[in-house]
């Protein structure tokens, strides 16, 4: 692990965008049963070829049932000064219910460890519909204005754990296998051009939305300028940040159903849209026209954890499927798995000979896989998004 560059990159790297290859993995238990992070660690760590020891992270949903009504802030802090500033800032904004260090396995002989801290927090008025918006402002404020402090995650009943090291090292450091969650996301990195930094590792989180991403967004400039119009500040010089903010904008601020939001991110080609009936054409064209700057271009596959209010896991690849994404469903149909590679699924079968998958498939390019807590698989990513006109009938005419 690298015991440096916690909340920011060294000055000389700050204007560079990070390009990387990655491994992504995750799963959701439809019935909400919580399982240890051990399984997701196995899924991720087998993808060794996809990382070079410069960053990994985990997101867990359902880990703080005791405090599930409070915003759970996970902080990465360089020093005690930053911690004091953050806590003073939060006290001004609302009530701190609980403030404590996140348990970590301290390495020996390292004297400049980061402070990994969590705060359960409530705003003055509970149930105010504007609370989420206020939290977003607080996150943006801390990340931009408080030196040496970074918010790793800010959702409810969930948390992000990430750092600079190999995926297994990060898992050990945060004692990931000791948490129990109904949904897990995990990520390992292969950055090309920076030494890697803790805050820059995935998952990226805002409120209950966490994103793990493999790829490079060639539309980054367009997406960033679009988001800045709505007050988002893209401070992290990485593509993945814009994906998290776009989902926040579309699904929370604009209140668009997730299935539609994924269409905005990776819309069908015009030639596919032209085959639809008139009403659907208007729908798809309106999405493309209105959200033309939200479209993600370039190679990517992402797995997103979200809850607004139903916890959901989403898998999506770009329109040309230039990055891999594979989905599996357990024999009891209770668990949906997603990963960069099928080896993640096979890994789970090594120690448990009874474990098997009902099905494993590759979703179509640009076609989202959506699995909801309680509701199961909403979309398997194999649907032909477009209902074709009855061609036979047309020919008969």
């Amino acid at each position, binding site marked *: 692990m690298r015991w440096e560059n916690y909340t920011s990159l060294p000055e000389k790297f700050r204007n560079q965008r990070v*390009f*990387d290859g990655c491994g992504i993995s995750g799963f959701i238990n439809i019935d909400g049963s919580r399982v240890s992070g051990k399984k997701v660690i196995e899924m991720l760590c087998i993808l060794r070829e996809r990382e070079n020891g410069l960053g990994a992270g985990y997101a867990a949903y359902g880990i703080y049932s005791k405090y599930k009504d409070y915003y759970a802030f996970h902080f990465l802090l360089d020093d005690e000064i930053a911690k004091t500033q953050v806590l003073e800032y939060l006290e001004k904004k609302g009530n701190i219910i609980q403030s404590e260090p996140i348990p970590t396995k301290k390495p020996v002989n390292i004297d400049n460890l980061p402070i990994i801290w969590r705060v359960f927090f409530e705003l003055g008025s509970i149930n105010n519909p504007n609370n989420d918006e206020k939290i977003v402002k607080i996150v943006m404020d801390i990340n931009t204005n408080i030196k040496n402090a970074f918010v790793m995650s800010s959702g409810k009943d969930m948390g992000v754990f990430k750092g600079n090291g190999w995926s297994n090292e990060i898992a050990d450091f945060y004692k990931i296998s000791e948490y129990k969650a109904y949904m897990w996301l995990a990520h390992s990195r292969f950055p090309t051009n920076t030494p890697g930094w803790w805050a820059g590792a995935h998952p990226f989180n805002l409120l209950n939305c966490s994103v793990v991403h493999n790829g490079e967004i060639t539309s980054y400039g367009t997406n960033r300028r679009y988001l800045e119009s709505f007050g988002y500040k893209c401070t992290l010089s990485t593509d993945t940040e814009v994906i998290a903010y776009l989902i926040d904008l579309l699904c929370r601020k604009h209140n668009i159903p997730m299935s*539609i939001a994924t269409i905005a991110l990776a819309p069908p080609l015009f*030639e596919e849209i032209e085959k639809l009936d008139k009403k659907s054409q208007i*729908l798809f064209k*309106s999405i493309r026209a209105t959200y033309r700057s939200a*479209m993600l271009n*370039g190679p990517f596959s992402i797995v997103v954890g979200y809850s607004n209010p139903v916890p959901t896991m989403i898998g999506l690849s770009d329109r040309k499927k*230039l990055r891999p994404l594979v989905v599996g469903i357990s024999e009891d149909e209770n668990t949906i798995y997603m990963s960069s590679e099928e080896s993640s699924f096979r890994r789970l079968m090594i120690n448990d000979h009874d474990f098997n998958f009902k099905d494993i498939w590759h979703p179509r390019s640009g076609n989202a896989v*959506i699995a909801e807590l309680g509701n199961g698989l909403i979309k398997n990513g194999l649907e032909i998004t477009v209902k074709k006109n009855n061609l036979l009938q047309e020919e008969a005419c």
Partner: protein
Amino acid sequence: MALTHEIISHFQVNVNREDCKKCKSCIKNCSFGVFSFNGKQIVAEHHKCVACQRCVIMCPGKAIHISQSESCLPPHGNYTEKIRNIIWAQSGTGGVLISATGNDRPIRSIFDDLLLDSCQVTNPSIDPIREIIETKIFFGRKPKKLDFTTASNDVNEVSLKTNNSVNFEIEMPIMIGHMSLGSISYNACQAIYQAAKELNIVAGSGEGGLHPDFYEYAPNIITEVASGRFGVDLNYLNNAVAIEIKIGQGAKPGHGGHLPGEKVSSLISQTRMIPEGSDALSPYPHHDIYSIEDLAQLIAALKEATRYKIPVGVKIAAVHNSAPIAVGIVRSGADFLTLDGFRGGTGAAPRIIRDHAGIPIELAIAAVDKSLREENLREQITLIAGGSIRYSADLIKVIALGADVAMCCMPVLIAMGCRVCQQCFRGLCPWGIATQDEILVKRLDITIAKNRIINLFHSWNEELKDVLGAMGIDSVESLRSNRDRLRYIGPNPRIAEILEVKHAGE
């Protein structure tokens, strides 16, 4: 003019006596009256020559070639030949000098100082021959957000609540700019509109009204309402896919239109609704627009007149305060905004304005895109940028700087045969483009001209796809305002700062 003040010729007309068949084709073809026959041989008055190349190409013996005049004035770095000629012309006539086409001063092009990005290793480029790359554009106002009736996740069950605002589609992010019937010929207009229709892009009508013959091209024509209101009636407004209120033009910000009486033929008099042979000088400002609230009223009136069925936009010249003006225009209800840079073309404009007023489109579009974003208005409108989009490289760069659509005129004229002799205002265009002389107009073959325009934009669009593919982008929407994909290599880092483009190597 007294002989002592005669301006020396720019060009030398060379007739090879051995090859000359004395057929007098050159005399017939030269609309500037350079040639005559003295009974023995063809003679040329060099000072009348504009190097339009008509005689050269039409000479059956290939006996003519035009060279730059060898005679010269005593050299001076400050009082250049051009400035001395301006002084002599003005001291001879006492008038404002008229010019045509765009600014011809050798001011450094910012487009030429911008370089494009391409993919290597970490992201794959996309091969446009094997993969689909989309260049379709929605033209018109978009809602800020969409609302849906159910929160269902099934796409087939979700229905759109937001009223679809008026938009139309064009196949490429290209618009042929406003060149009026009057400034250019009937045949040139016909070729342009036919090409626009076949390509499914849009072309501007200019401020000269719309000849009833052209109503059939309405789905591809943006009509213009300018300060002179020439030809504006309900037919004109409704026979269009969009209406543009022309406040200014890049070649002559602050000025109205200038159509010299020489070009007002009977055809022009009918479509413009003005007497034959009269100068058609539209007023500098709109006499019903003295501030932004007046513009809002005109936009509303035009929308009302056309029953809210077609988008109404505004064109302004790129000037120092374009950015706040643009924000005001969008707030006034404009569905699209056209920005015309200082290099933009004209059929006739005072030289002083053409050469010295306005700012480059590169800077203007960057500033306007930025301030519209600061006000969260950018996504709602279509932003069109013109003012010397010379070839596909400029088109690509202007979109990356923030435009939805690139507008151009000169390349269209050049494709049809224009040699850029810059004499449009004289009505003598020997290629049948910028003239109303029936004999000259006939020289422009509509079908050939149309096909050349189609070929030109087809190749631009293919080049756009090639560049998008190299950038790893499969839809032009993702290039828009994507300034990360540009780098600056010019001499002035301040320009890069204003463009919000990094320097090459950064």
